[in-house]
C-alpha cells in the first residue's frame, strides 16, 4: 500500500471509529452517572437495564415493532405511488398543478397531531394511523419530484424536440432520470417523516386503545410507570428511524453513485 493510500485508509478508519467511540463514551457516562448517584430506574434507567428490558420484553416489543414498521412502510409506499403519480400529472398539465397543489400544501401545513383525532372519528385506529403517516410522507416526495421533473436541462429538452420525441419518451428518457436525485432526496425526508407520522398518530389514538405499535407501548408503559420499557420502546423507534435513513442513503448511493455529484466520492 502506498503512503498516501495508507494515510487515506487511516483517515477513513478514524471517520468510522471516532463517532463510535464518542457514542460508546456517552453511553458509558450515562451508566456511570446512574450507578454512582444511585438513581432509581423509575426516574432514569441505566443503559444496561434498557438493554435487558429489550431482551426480556422482546416478545411483546417485537410484535409492536413489526406493527410500526409495517405501517411506516405501507404509508411510505402509498406516498411514493401517490407522490410520483401526482408529480408526473403536474409536470404534464400545468392546470392540474395549479388546481391541486394548494390541497397538497394545506395537508402539509396543517399539523398532523391536529388531524389525527378527526381521522379517528371516520376510520379505525390502524387505518387512521396509516393515513397520518401517509400525509406527512407524501408532501416531500411530491414537491421534490415536481421540482426534479421540471429541472430537466433546457437544452436536452430542445434536443428531444429536435428529434420529435413524444411526450412519453421525453418523460421516461429525460424527465424521470433528471428527477431521480430529487426524488431520492424527498424519499430520505419522507421515510423519516412516515415513522414520525405513524408514532404521533398512534400517540393521538392512544385512548382509542386498539393500537399495538411502539408508540402505544410507550403510552401504556407510561401509565404503568414502567420507565425502562418506555426507554426500550424509544430505543427501538430510534433504531428503526436510523435503519430507514441508512436504507435510503444506500439506495441513493446505489442509484446515483456513478453519475450524480451528490454521491461523488468525498476525496475527489
Amino acid at each position: 500500500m502506498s503512503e498516501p493510500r495508507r494515510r487515506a485508509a487511516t483517515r477513513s478508519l478514524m471517520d468510522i471509529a471516532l463517532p463510535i467511540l464518542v457514542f460508546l463514551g456517552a453511553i458509558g457516562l450515562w451508566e456511570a452517572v446512574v450507578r454512582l448517584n444511585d438513581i432509581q430506574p423509575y426516574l432514569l434507567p441505566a443503559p444496561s437495564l434498557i438493554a435487558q428490558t429489550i431482551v426480556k420484553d422482546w416478545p411483546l416489543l417485537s410484535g409492536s415493532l413489526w406493527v410500526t414498521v409495517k405501517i411506516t412502510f405501507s404509508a411510505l409506499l402509498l406516498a411514493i405511488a401517490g407522490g410520483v403519480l401526482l408529480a408526473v400529472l403536474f409536470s404534464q398539465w400545468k392546470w392540474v398543478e395549479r388546481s391541486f397543489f394548494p390541497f397538497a400544501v394545506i395537508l402539509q401545513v396543517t399539523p398532523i397531531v391536529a388531524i389525527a383525532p378527526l381521522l379517528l372519528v371516520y376510520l379505525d385506529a390502524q387505518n387512521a394511523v396509516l393515513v397520518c403517516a401517509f400525509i406527512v410522507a407524501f408532501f416531500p416526495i411530491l414537491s421534490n419530484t415536481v421540482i426534479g421533473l421540471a429541472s430537466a436541462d433546457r437544452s436536452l429538452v430542445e434536443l428531444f424536440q429536435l428529434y420529435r420525441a413524444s411526450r412519453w419518451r421525453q418523460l421516461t428518457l429525460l424527465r424521470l432520470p433528471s428527477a431521480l436525485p430529487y426524488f431520492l432526496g424527498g424519499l430520505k425526508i419522507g421515510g423519516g417523516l412516515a415513522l414520525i407520522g405513524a408514532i404521533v398518530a398512534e400517540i393521538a389514538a392512544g385512548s382509542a386503545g386498539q393500537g399495538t405499535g411502539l408508540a402505544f407501548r410507550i403510552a401504556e408503559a407510561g401509565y404503568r410507570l414502567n420507565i425502562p420499557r418506555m426507554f426500550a420502546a424509544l430505543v427501538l423507534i430510534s433504531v428503526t428511524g436510523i435503519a430507514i435513513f441508512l436504507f435510503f442513503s444506500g439506495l441513493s448511493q446505489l442509484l446515483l453513485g456513478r453519475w450524480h455529484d451528490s454521491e461523488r466520492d468525498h476525496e475527489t
Partner: protein
Amino acid sequence: MAMLARLSGVSKTFANGTLALRGLDLTIGDGEFLTLLGPSGCGKSTALRLLAGLMPPSEGTVRWQAGAAREIGFVFQDPTLMPWASVFDNVWLPLRLRNQSRKAAAKEIEQALALVGLADVAHVYPRELSGGMKMRASIARALVTHPPLLLLDEPFAALDEITRFKLNNDLLRLKTELGTTVVFVTHSVFESVYLSSRIAVFSARPGRVIAEIDIPEPLPRDESFRLSPAYAEHCRIASQALQRAMPDQAA
C-alpha cells in the same frame, strides 16, 4: 451554390416582448460552412433555433430546398449530455428516439465515436470526461444520424484555446469528410475566419445580417492559414464589420 434553406424577412419577438431579430434574410448554401458572427445577445442563437424548427418565427418564413431531408444535427453551447448515461448511450439517443434498438444502432454509434476520436471511452460516464471530450461526444451525437445540416451554437466558447484550436481542426476535417453543410455561431472573429467559407455578420439586437464576407481559401485549413496574410486581412475586414454592428455601444 445550390440553396439548402432560406430565412426571408424573419422577425422574432419573445413572449417577454424582447425583439430578437428583425427583417433577417439569410440563405444557407448547400455544402458551405457558414458562420453567424455577432455581438453577444444579437439573436444569432435565435436564428439557429428558427432554422432548426425549435421555435416558429413571429414574421417571415423559413423555407427549405424542395426535397431536402430536414434532418438536422444540433450542438449546443454546453455539451448537454445526459449525466446518467454512458457516452455510448448518449450518442445512441437520436437513434433511440427513432426506435432503433441499442444493438441495431451499435455500429452507427461506434462509427460516430470513432469519427470524433472517442472510441476508447464509449462506456465512460460524462463526468469522467474533460470539457473537450464532452464536446466531442456532443458532436458525435449530432452526427450519428448523418444529418446533411449541422448547427453549432458557440460550441467551443467555454474551452481553453489549445483545445479549441484542436476541435476547430477536427470540425473542419469532419465537415470535408462528410460533406455536411455547417452553420456555426460564434462571437470570435478569429474562429469565424478560420472555419468558414462564408461569414454573416449580425447587428446588435434586433439582429439582422449587416455584412457577408466570403473566405475563398479551400477547406480544410491548417495552422499555416492562421499565419497567412490572407487570414489577417479577412480578420481585419470581419472586425471592422463587427465594429459597425455595434454603433452606439461605448465598448
